């Protein structure tokens, strides 16, 4: 009973934090606009057509990346795992850049390319899923290197101007997702629910495969489900915003340090915390050197690393 109450408090706390950050992020920009009463038509356009979609995209993408990171860390039994570790980002980038080469002016083709590329990468990784975690990780890292090489080859052939688009895509951009925002939020919710359903099995998996099996978990089926789920979520995040590093690696660890390693809590906290961190990072990206803008990937690291290291030292 007490546990139940705690959980609700926990969710309420996160919703309150997200709400607060969203309001501040909405107001901040070229100049401060009060979210309650924009003074003219242009200000309300800036608030609701420019800042609001961007904030929602950041929240969903950040949450998805953090969830995927948490899953990959259990799945591979490796704290260094993150959503892009098995080469999904690399294959998505290959797809996106191929799209840019064929139709340089279409955002849609780029996104489609990224999505197809991500799934090609996932299919390649899945064919190694029967191997143990170490070998799967090894296969993924080698595949990632291959995608990296193909990407370099494509970029060497891109004309000068295409390169700018490719670089910008690879550094992440939340300003114009070609996926509808309601879909992103729906995927976020779906992923979180799937995660919560699986969370008890994940806790058991954390004890080691043999223990998990002894406790009645079908490990090989769980691993397959998890791999598919984590990869699919990564594919959606990459399609929406390009590759944004760091969130997937650091947020799950951050949440473990703050709230313990019970998966129900870690996944819930990651889904909100990842979104929160990405909103903060993206708001900084568009305001720090305003009117110019920084790539959001830079800010996720600049904000995330010190917080993470500080917690690491404090909790030793």
């Amino acid at each position, binding site marked *: 009973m007490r546990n139940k109450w705690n959980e609700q408090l926990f969710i309420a706390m996160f919703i309150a934090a997200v709400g607060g950050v969203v309001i501040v992020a909405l107001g901040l920009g*070229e100049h401060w606009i009060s979210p309650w009463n924009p003074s003219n038509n242009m200000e309300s*356009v800036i608030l609701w057509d*420019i800042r609001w979609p961007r904030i929602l995209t950041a929240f969903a993408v950040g949450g998805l990346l953090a969830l995927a990171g948490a899953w990959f860390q259990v799945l591979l039994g490796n704290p260094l795992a993150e959503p892009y570790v098995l080469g999904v980002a690399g294959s998505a980038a290959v797809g996106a850049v191929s799209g840019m080469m064929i139709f340089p002016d279409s955002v849609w083709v780029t996104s489609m390319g990224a999505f197809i590329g991500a799934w090609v990468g996932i299919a390649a990784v899945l064919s190694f899923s029967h191997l143990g975690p170490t070998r799967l990780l090894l296969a993924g890292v080698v595949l990632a290197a291959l995608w990296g090489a193909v990407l370099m080859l494509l970029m060497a052939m891109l004309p000068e101007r295409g390169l700018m*688009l490719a670089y910008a895509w690879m550094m992440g*951009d939340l300003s*114009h997702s070609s996926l509808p925002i309601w879909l992103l939020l729906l995927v976020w919710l779906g992923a979180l629910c799937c995660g919560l359903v699986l969370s008890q099995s994940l806790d058991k998996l954390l004890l080691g495969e043999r223990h998990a099996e002894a406790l009645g978990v079908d490990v090989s089926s769980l691993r397959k489900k998890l791999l598919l789920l984590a990869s699919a979520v990564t594919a959606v995040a990459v399609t929406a915003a390009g590759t944004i590093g760091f969130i997937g690696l650091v947020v799950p660890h951050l949440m473990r340090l703050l709230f313990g390693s019970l998966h129900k809590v870690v996944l819930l906290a990651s889904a909100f915390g990842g979104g929160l961190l990405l909103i903060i990072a993206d708001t900084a990206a568009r305001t720090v050197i305003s*009117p*110019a*803008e920084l*790539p959001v990937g830079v800010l996720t690291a600049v904000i995330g690393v010190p917080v993470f290291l500080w917690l690491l030292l404090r909790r030793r």
Partner: protein
Amino acid sequence: MKRLCVLLLLLFSAFPASASERILALAPHVCEMLFAIGAGDEVVGAVSYCDYPAAAKKLPRVGTYNRINIEAAIALRPTVAIVTDAATPGVKKLSALGVRIVRSHPEKVEEVLADIRRLGEITGHKQQADQVAFALQQRLDVLPARTNQKKLRVFYEIWPDPLLTAGKNTFIHDVLKHLGLVNVFGAVQMEAPRVNVESVLAAKPQLVIVPSEKRDVSVRSQYWKKWLGEDIQVITVNPDLLHRSGPRLLDGMEALDVQLQGLNFEK
């Protein structure tokens, strides 16, 4: 071995050099300048995008804007290489092999004219270069008098995605200034700052200039009308004329000026 190479090169280059230079034009604007001042026959090699005048298209290519293929370059037995940036990979090696390196990277409109004169001196075509520069100077001098659209606020969209514009101390900024236009991001201390729609909205431009090879702005025009309102004027320019700091710059500036005359701002 290296010394022997250098010696051989020096020998090779020493004999025909008395007649004329053998020039590598390692940037599109350099190529155009050399042909304009009558040094086209002495250009033996070029890089990608050196596509004007037509004769330049037939030149052997020795690299791209950011990398020089040393073997291909040396095989042409050059005596002078004109580059935009001495730090480009390959330039140092060329210099070590005895090729004279000349830098030309105009960052202001006036520097284009100065560089035309300078290249004239270097290549022995001083007279024609002076004539070309003088004619351009005259065309440049009459521009502000003709421009009546004073102090129009302009957003110059270098690239739509990511949205890039021209900052302070850039060539494009200087070109706009010469036409009596105000670059809305002219205070940003970056060469090509990445901006977002919100900052463009806040900068309140009256005119958007979209450089486009195909001269088609229908898509961008729709895009900016959606954000900046139906009143916003969107025009296009030929980037080969306006971004290339060569002798055709004034063609580009005059074409832009003609378009500015045709605009009407009812307010």
